[in-house]
């Protein structure tokens, strides 16, 4: 059997396994919308841990992450740096979000904020922004999957077919099992990803240099500027401390706000489960260190790989590994892509129905039709993202960067919801809009930026200022209503 077929066979076994796990996982949950979107709020620690871990780390983990370390050196440390805070804010407001979800039946992020501020506008704006951030993110996952397939089978499985195969499986299990499908497959995929990252991260430096220490010593002799932060910029020039620090800040602010993670707070069985997930989350996250070691291992041994994202597939296919191992690598990289893609697809469909369509056009939609429409949307959104990923060559990374700046704008809204009773509907809405507008402005006109500071930071500042001023200038909201949400 030719080598590429072994690789293909191993990868397909993984896909079949994912499909089986995904299909079997819906047993035991109700057939309501709450069951499909939030798993009947019954998730235990293990599944929640893997949902959070595996959906956060996307195809980026095996392509972009090593690519950053390989081409930009210590700049990639920022990804570890923002993880020091990571999900910790959830420890404090998570139980509150979960309790409000149980009382009022929320399953998405915007439902909570729209209720607090009695505003359909906030729901609509958040839905549009979430979907606008999700789509390029989902497309990136699909192209990652197609790309890995194509390279590792030496072009025998073309890009379009690889993406279709991997996301066909995702589509089926998300359609069928909703959140539980995402949860159980992410558990499988998470174990695969972690195993692969630690395995390769320790093996490659050893194989190519005789150990992690000797590897860094060699890099230090040839390219010392790569090993001290802030590392290098996208063009190989030194990166600025302003850009390094503000990337960390904007990620710290936005990290716990991504709508598809945020809605997972509703899924926990109880508060202790939710807190336990937050506490143990860094044990997943520390696998970013081997991911970086993988990227660094290419610096001396494989110079000049372009684009840098191809460094890991390049190493794996050129050091004469057994095709079974290459197949496992392919499966692991697909797992990273799929475990994020499934959560995005699931969240997109839920948000589009709950926060957009239902709120703005069909307030009395019943539970059954909600669930049906969500499932139809899984297929439609999946198909749309696929076609765009295959056909269009939009600069996805640019879109995604703007997306990160956008998501950070939700943080002031969340703080206002829980901690500042004086916030009014107008204050919240205008703050949000100002934040978005300023983020877009600084993205479109980079010349006005100072010290390479992330556009999202300017957005957050504008957002907070407008939120406070407009709230103080408008009439306070009804106390009895606000008291349900704020900490007292």
């Amino acid at each position, binding site marked *: 059997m030719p080598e590429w077929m072994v690789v293909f066979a191993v990868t397909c076994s993984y896909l079949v396994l994912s499909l089986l796990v995904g299909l079997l996982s819906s047993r035991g949950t109700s057939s309501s919308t709450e069951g499909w979107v939030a798993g009947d709020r019954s998730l235990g620690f293990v599944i929640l841990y893997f949902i959070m871990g595996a959906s956060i780390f996307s195809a980026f983990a095996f392509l972009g992450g090593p690519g950053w370390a390989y081409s930009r050196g210590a700049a990639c440390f920022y990804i570890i740096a923002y993880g020091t805070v990571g999900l910790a804010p959830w420890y404090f407001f998570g139980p509150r979000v979960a309790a409000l979800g149980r009382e009022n039946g929320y399953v998405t992020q915007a439902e909570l904020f729209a209720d607090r501020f009695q505003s359909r506008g906030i729901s609509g704006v958040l839905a549009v922004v979430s979907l606008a951030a999700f789509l390029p993110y989902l497309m990136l996952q699909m192209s990652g999957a197609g790309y890995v397939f194509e390279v590792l089978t030496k072009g025998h499985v073309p890009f379009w077919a690889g993406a279709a195969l991997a996301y066909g499986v995702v589509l089926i299990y998300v359609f069928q099992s909703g959140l539980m499908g995402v949860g159980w497959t992410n558990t499988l995929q998470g174990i695969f990803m972690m195993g692969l990252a630690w395995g390769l991260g320790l093996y490659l430096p050893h194989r190519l240099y005789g150990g992690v220490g000797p590897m860094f010593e060699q890099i230090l002799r040839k390219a010392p500027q790569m090993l001290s932060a802030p590392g290098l910029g996208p063009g190989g020039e030194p990166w600025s401390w302003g850009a390094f620090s503000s990337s*960390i800040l904007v990620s710290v602010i936005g990290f716990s706000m991504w709508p598809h993670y945020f809605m997972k707070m509703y899924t926990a069985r109880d508060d202790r489960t939710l807190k336990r997930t937050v506490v143990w989350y860094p044990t997943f996250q520390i696998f970013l260190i081997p991911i*970086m070691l993988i990227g660094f291992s290419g610096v001396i041994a494989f110079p000049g790989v372009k684009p840098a994202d191809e460094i890991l597939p390049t190493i794996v296919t050129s050091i004469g590994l057994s095709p079974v191992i290459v197949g496992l690598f392919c499966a692991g990289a697909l797992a990273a892509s799929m475990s994020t893609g499934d959560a995005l697809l699931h969240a997109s469909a839920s948000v589009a129905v709950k926060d957009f369509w239902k709120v703005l056009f069909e307030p009395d939609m019943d539970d059954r039709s909600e669930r049906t429409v969500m499932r139809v949307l899984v297929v439609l959104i999946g198909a749309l993202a696929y076609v765009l990923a295959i056909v269009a060559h939009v600069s996805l990374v640019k879109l995604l960067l703007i997306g990160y700046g956008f998501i950070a704008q939700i943080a002031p809204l969340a703080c206002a919801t829980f901690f500042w009773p004086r916030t009014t509907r107008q204050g919240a809405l205008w703050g949000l809009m100002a934040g978005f507008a300023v983020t877009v402005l600084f993205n479109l006109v980079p010349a006005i930026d100072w010290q390479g500071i992330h556009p999202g930071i300017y957005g957050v500042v504008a957002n907070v200022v407008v939120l406070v001023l407009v709230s103080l200038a408008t009439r306070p909201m009804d106390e009895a209503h606000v008291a349900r949400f704020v900490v007292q």
Partner: protein
Amino acid sequence: MRLKPRIFSSKLTRTERLVYGAVTVFFILSCLVTIWPIYPYFSHALPLVLGLPFGLFFLAVVLVVSFSALLAVYLWEGRRERPDSRSSPAEERR
């Protein structure tokens, strides 16, 4: 207005407020040490520790410390919530 802006619920005990306050301050600090102007003091390549450049090792340590801090709070809460524990460890220390 009757409702006041609060970070911690007024129902918490003094000890609880102290612990949560300390953790909040700790996480703000753990973010600040990873950015300018503090991180530049730790971001050099040498010495290599456990084979890692010092700046990376430093971040790994911060990550492990913040993990331990939150784990400690979690365990402490667990002990307080258990009905058979007569006094919380934090109060014993006083």
